[in-house]
């Protein structure tokens, strides 16, 4: 008998919303929160539009952590706080060795690394900060959360591109099944600095549109790539029995996960790997394709990738299942994009409402896209899809706890 792992707390930090309430308000209203980049001067960049988080780090992060952390880790620390508050859990855990942290990101502390590189190359080795060796590390968020909240249990750091948010939830479930009592899991990403963006331009995946209203239009004939975003989403994952014992209400069950690889770099047009990830996740969840009530799509807005995703959804579920992509309103936050999708799916199951794609005038296919306004629905099971730039695919089935 395997242990059921449940999500008892959600902590999103996203453009348009810090915390579950604000985030839900923003996405259920289908607001477009994209705008011209202000984190640096994007004048000479091909990409000028992004989803930025409005975030008062001074207010949310204890100063001793602030001075030694990258913006990504600050998002992660805040998101972990929000998730734990949502789960009515205040650290330290009764047994710190049964409480762990697992996080993911694509670019780690890229902005801190750029700052360190600048100091080194402009001023010399004596100007490199003592915090440099770990502030820019991909491992910093897991480390700092575990230190701040005294979590000595299983820890981990994954890098699986945009699929990371889903893979960490699966990893947290592994830890719970191996005896951990409570896991903080999720993604944190702050890629809106020149050092993190510049290497991506040669791949030509990012939207170069200068108009926030039309820059990111997944599944549309006008799709022209995705808009980058920053943000985080952390979750509190526990065994169902522990959640019940703490009197914490489970918001969703992590029901099934599948991860595959497409050997073709950057979004396999055949969609074969994504389809297999879906089948693995659905089988693992012990359900059938017709049990899926809503699909949170990866929605890259890269025409071949959108086409592949539509084909996968159609072939597995037909055209009746509602499909949404709230990220079209705030951008694709790399590893955090799938974590924020999972957060949206949990909130969606909880509210019985599907948040919409803000705008989609002429879809490329006849799927049941939820567009413009939220849709009330009887939701028991949600499927979240994610594909990584390097070829990783991931699918996650979440269920409402009473089903």
């Amino acid at each position, binding site marked *: 008998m395997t242990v059921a792992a449940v999500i008892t707390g959600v902590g999103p930090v996203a453009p348009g919303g810090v915390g579950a309430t604000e985030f839900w308000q923003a996405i259920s209203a289908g607001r477009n929160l994209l705008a011209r980049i202000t984190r640096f001067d994007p004048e000479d960049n091909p990409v000028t539009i992004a989803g930025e988080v409005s975030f008062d780090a001074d207010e949310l992060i204890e*100063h001793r952590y602030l001075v030694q952390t990258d913006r990504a880790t600050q998002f992660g620390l805040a998101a972990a706080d929000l998730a734990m508050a949502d789960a009515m859990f205040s650290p330290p855990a009764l047994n710190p060795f049964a409480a762990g942290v697992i996080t993911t990101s694509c670019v780690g502390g890229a902005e801190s690394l750029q700052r360190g590189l600048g100091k080194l190359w402009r001023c010399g080795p004596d100007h490199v*900060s003592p915090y440099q060796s770990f502030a820019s590390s991909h491992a910093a968020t897991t480390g700092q959360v575990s230190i701040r909240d005294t979590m000595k249990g299983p820890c981990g750091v994954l890098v699986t591109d945009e699929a990371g948010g889903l893979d960490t939830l699966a990893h947290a479930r592994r830890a719970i099944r191996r005896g951990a009592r409570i896991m903080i899991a999720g993604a944190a990403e702050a890629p809106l600095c020149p050092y993190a963006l510049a290497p991506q331009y040669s791949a030509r995946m990012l939207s170069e549109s200068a108009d926030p209203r039309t820059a990111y239009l997944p599944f549309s004939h006008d799709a022209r790539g995705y808009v980058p975003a920053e943000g985080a989403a952390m979750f509190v994952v526990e065994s169902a029995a522990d959640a019940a014992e703490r009197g914490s209400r489970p918001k969703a069950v992590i029901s099934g996960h599948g991860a595959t690889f497409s050997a073709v770099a950057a979004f396999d047009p055949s969609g074969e790997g994504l389809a297999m990830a879906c089948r693995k996740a659905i089988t693992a969840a012990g359900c059938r394709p017709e049990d899926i009530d809503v699909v949170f799509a990866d929605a890259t807005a890269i025409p071949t990738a959108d086409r592949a995703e539509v084909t996968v959804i159609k072939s597995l579920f037909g055209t009746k299942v509602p499909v949404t992509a709230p990220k079209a309103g705030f951008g694709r936050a790399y590893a955090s994009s799938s974590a924020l999708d999972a957060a949206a799916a949990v909130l969606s199951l909880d509210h019985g409402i599907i948040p919409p794609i803000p705008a989609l005038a002429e879809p490329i296919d006849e799927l049941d896209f939820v567009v413009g306004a939220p849709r009330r629905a009887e939701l028991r099971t949600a499927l979240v899809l994610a594909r990584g730039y390097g070829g990783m695919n991931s699918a996650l089935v979440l269920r409402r706890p009473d089903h």
Partner: protein
Amino acid sequence: MSSISEQTYQELASVILQCGGITVSIHRLSHRGTTFADIGVDSLGMLAVVRELEHRRRVDLGATAAQDCRTPHQLMSRLCEACDGEV
């Protein structure tokens, strides 16, 4: 050794805030018995504080200053020596 002015401790307090994220009063800082550990400045924080003071004053406090100086008083005395008493 010359005495250490309040202004110097003021500067140290601002460096500790900037590099360690810790707010500490001048009163506490200038008390001879106060250690950096008491205030919450750890080994990394000490390296950052020493480095920042060195850059601000353009002096060399020695390779082991961060380890050697356990108290603000010791660090300020060393700074004082390094600046030929003109602190």
